[in-house]
């Protein structure tokens, strides 16, 4: 079988489903399909807790949302993209309201908004603290209304089919049967999400392995700003489960081991008993995670078997606020940490959370490869620059998912049928996968060993603080891991639901992504947002007010180039919080 579609979505998370609906609405004649390695409602968007930003309050403006985003990004985002984003976010969030999303409400029935880190006004829409869950299920259920949207649930994409600089479809494995099939398409939209699993300690789900970034990179599309990895300041110590920023937005405090609100020592403002926007606990994530590292150095954190921690204090909020605004936080603390935030302090530490970088796209999601689009966390448009603001990425999935869907629909309407050359490529890929299953016979190492070592290398070399030494060492170690991966072993040779094979394919993607992160970080000799070099502690606009673009050379090595940042109305300035 070779199935064929006009537009093929890879990924059924927030971005993928929004894009699929956009295609169906733009041109109902087109055949649209969504391929996803998990059932769409299992996608990682489901875990998002805090909220989604979009200007709606009377005292808020689009320009203020844009400025918060741009200063939050340390001026590395593209301002034309940000302007489009802030303009379209409210409309997208309203559309989701019309589709049934159970947004939390004001007493008069209007949609409620809450404060969020780095945002000067209240503009974050929320559905209690299960925002991503409700958004994803609303999108999934609404997508069922469109008969034209075909789904390939639990199909794993292993390769993009490219001919003459244009993408014509994918090869994918149906997990249940192990069948390997080509699915051709006039356009492909990557919505495969992020890659937090490259690190050992992350809020990200098991499926977030950077597959789409690797697929695009290997197909010849460059990856942008891969050195910018966001640490979220508040993860639970053992599991890495996220305690949402909404907990601080509702008034939570961060305390060091002396019970002191230490953020006041890091130019983030003065402690106030009530939350103050763009100040203290509501500062941006990069600055908060960096402050934690300094507290560790000063010996003011508490040691635990899972590393140093500080505490999040929610007790003064009381059971009522916690149960109405943060019920999931309480549920997670009780279940995974055995503590009740109503009465006890919550231990937290910074945790890898979000990938600012991704596949290079323009403002409509188009990549430099013909027929290939990308949206959501896999893509880098970029509105996030060197540091994403919390609650900007869910609306990013909607705004740019919809844009990519509309653009791809138009492209598909004009594109011709896939050339026959891609069938031969698909055959090669099928043989490669079959060999992987057949040849990995004994003697090699386990996938999991190489995976854990890679994760440790990334933490040690490309964590919150980096340096030439740490990164160069990391690059060497990754190269060795690549070698060991080539001869790694599989216990499982069967075709039926072979999760060891998918783990192997995911590890291959993560090794690609890890290398691009380290190589981009090595070359950026400055500190900006989430990329902090101890050997280059200052921002250097003269050399690096530019996106990094990493390309894959034919021999597998990488090449980093730079692309100027697009600026419209906001020249680079100082990032000021709490003053």
């Amino acid at each position: 079988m070779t199935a064929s579609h006009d537009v093929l979505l890879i990924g059924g998370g927030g971005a993928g489903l929004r894009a699929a609906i956009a295609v169906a609405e733009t041109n109902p004649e087109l055949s649209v399909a969504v391929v996803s390695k998990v059932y769409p409602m299992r996608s990682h968007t489901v875990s998002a807790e805090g909220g989604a930003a979009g200007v709606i309050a009377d005292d808020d403006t689009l320009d203020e949302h844009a400025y918060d985003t741009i200063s939050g990004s340390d001026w590395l985002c593209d301002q034309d993209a940000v302007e489009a984003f802030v303009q379209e976010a409210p409309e997208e969030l309203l559309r989701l309201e019309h589709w049934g999303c159970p947004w939390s409400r004001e007493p008069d029935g209007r949609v409620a908004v809450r404060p969020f880190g780095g945002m000067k006004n209240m503009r974050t829409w929320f559905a209690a603290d299960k925002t991503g869950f409700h958004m994803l299920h609303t999108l999934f259920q609404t997508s069922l209304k469109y008969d034209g949207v075909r789904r390939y649930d639990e199909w794993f994409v292993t390769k993009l089919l490219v001919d003459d600089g244009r993408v014509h479809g994918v090869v994918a494995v149906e997990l249940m049967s192990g069948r390997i099939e080509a699915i051709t398409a006039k356009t492909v939209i990557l919505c495969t999400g992020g890659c937090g699993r490259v690190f050992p300690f992350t809020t990200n789900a098991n499926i977030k392995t950077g597959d789409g970034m690797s697929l695009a990179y290997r197909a010849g599309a460059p990856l942008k700003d891969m050195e910018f990895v966001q640490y979220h300041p508040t993860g639970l110590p053992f599991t890495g489960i996220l305690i949402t920023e909404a907990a601080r937005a509702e008034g939570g405090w961060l305390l060091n081991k002396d019970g002191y609100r230490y953020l006041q020592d890091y130019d983030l403002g003065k402690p106030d008993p009530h939350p103050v926007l763009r100040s203290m606990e509501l500062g941006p994530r990069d600055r908060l995670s960096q402050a934690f590292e300094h507290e560790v150095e000063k010996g003011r954190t508490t040691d635990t078997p899972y590393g140093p921690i500080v505490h999040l204090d929610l007790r003064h909020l009381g059971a009522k606020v916690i149960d109405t605004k943060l019920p999931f936080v309480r549920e997670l603390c009780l279940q995974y940490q055995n503590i009740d935030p109503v009465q006890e302090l919550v231990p937290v530490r910074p945790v890898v959370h979000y990938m600012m970088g991704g596949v290079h796209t323009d403002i409509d999601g188009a990549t430099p490869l013909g027929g290939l689009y990308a949206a959501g966390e896999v893509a880098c448009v970029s509105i996030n620059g060197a540091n994403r603001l919390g609650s900007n990425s869910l609306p990013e999935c909607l705004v740019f998912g919809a844009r990519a869907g509309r653009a791809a629909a138009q492209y598909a309407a004009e594109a011709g049928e896939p050339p026959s050359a891609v069938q031969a490529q698909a055959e090669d890929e099928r043989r490669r996968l079959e060999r992987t299953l057949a040849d990995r016979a004994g003697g090699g190492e386990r996938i999991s060993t190489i995976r854990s070592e890679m994760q440790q290398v990334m933490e040690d070399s490309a964590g919150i603080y980096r340096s030439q030494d740490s990164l160069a060492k990391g690059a060497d170690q990754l190269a060795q891991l690549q070698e060991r991966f080539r001869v790694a072993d599989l216990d499982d040779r069967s075709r039926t639901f072979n999760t060891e094979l998918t783990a192997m394919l995911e590890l291959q993607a993560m090794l690609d992504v890890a290398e691009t992160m380290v190589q981009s970080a090595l070359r950026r000799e400055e500190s900006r947002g989430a990329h902090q070099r101890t050997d280059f502690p200052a921002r250097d606009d003269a050399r690096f007010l530019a996106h990094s673009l990493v390309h894959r050379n034919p021999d597998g090595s990488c090449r980093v180039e730079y692309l100027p940042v697009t600026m419209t109305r906001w020249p680079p300035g100082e990032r000021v919080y709490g003053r």
Partner: protein
Amino acid sequence: MADSITLQVTRYRPEEESEPTIQEYDVPLGRQWSVLDGLNYVKDQIDGTLSFRWSCRMGICGSCGMTVNGEPKLTCGAFLTDYAPGPVRVEPLANFPVIRDLVVEIGDFIRKLPSVQPWIVREEERPVSEGEYLQTPEELDDYQQYSMCINCMLCYAACPVYGLDPEFMGPAAIALAQRYNLDSRDEGSRERLDVLIEHEGIWGCTFVGECTAVCPKGVDPAGAIQRYKLTAATETLKSFLLPRGAR
């Protein structure tokens, strides 16, 4: 306390064996370890051939449902220390065909979902430019509980009716229909009612309440089914009295 615990895991590899078997693995009894952590220890350290689904490990994606010591559970939310000293039996969810090991086929549910029209139905769509549909916190409360379903399928595994009659729409699908019926923005309850009455739907349920007991998210599908039956009964009565258009 012992420092390890035995998992007795059901294995089934359709390419090699015609019957399920049980395999034992000793895993560390970590203080905060979930049953899922135990399974991942097996997969990563002992036996890479064991297959199971998981993703979020925080009780929200709904993929890790299995039968643990006889009860349907999210394995990421069931903790090894609660089963000490063991052994812990880990089986696939009941009432579903098994694809392999602990992975079951839930396609039946996925295929049934669209038939309850789980989306907002309106006679007239208001343009987005006119803003949100107002909905007070009280109106939100009316359906919120039913909107919490993560499609984990534990209720299907627990449901004696679904076990006997696979035509039964099942607890989560009915709760989802009710989620939209009770939403102040929706006008589709009549259409959904027709579907449910026609397809055996709710009449199959004998109100055993097992679904509500096992639900990890407090959805109360049994309550949804009961409410539905009541509406359906009165609506059926009314249909004898009034011509359709008059409703």
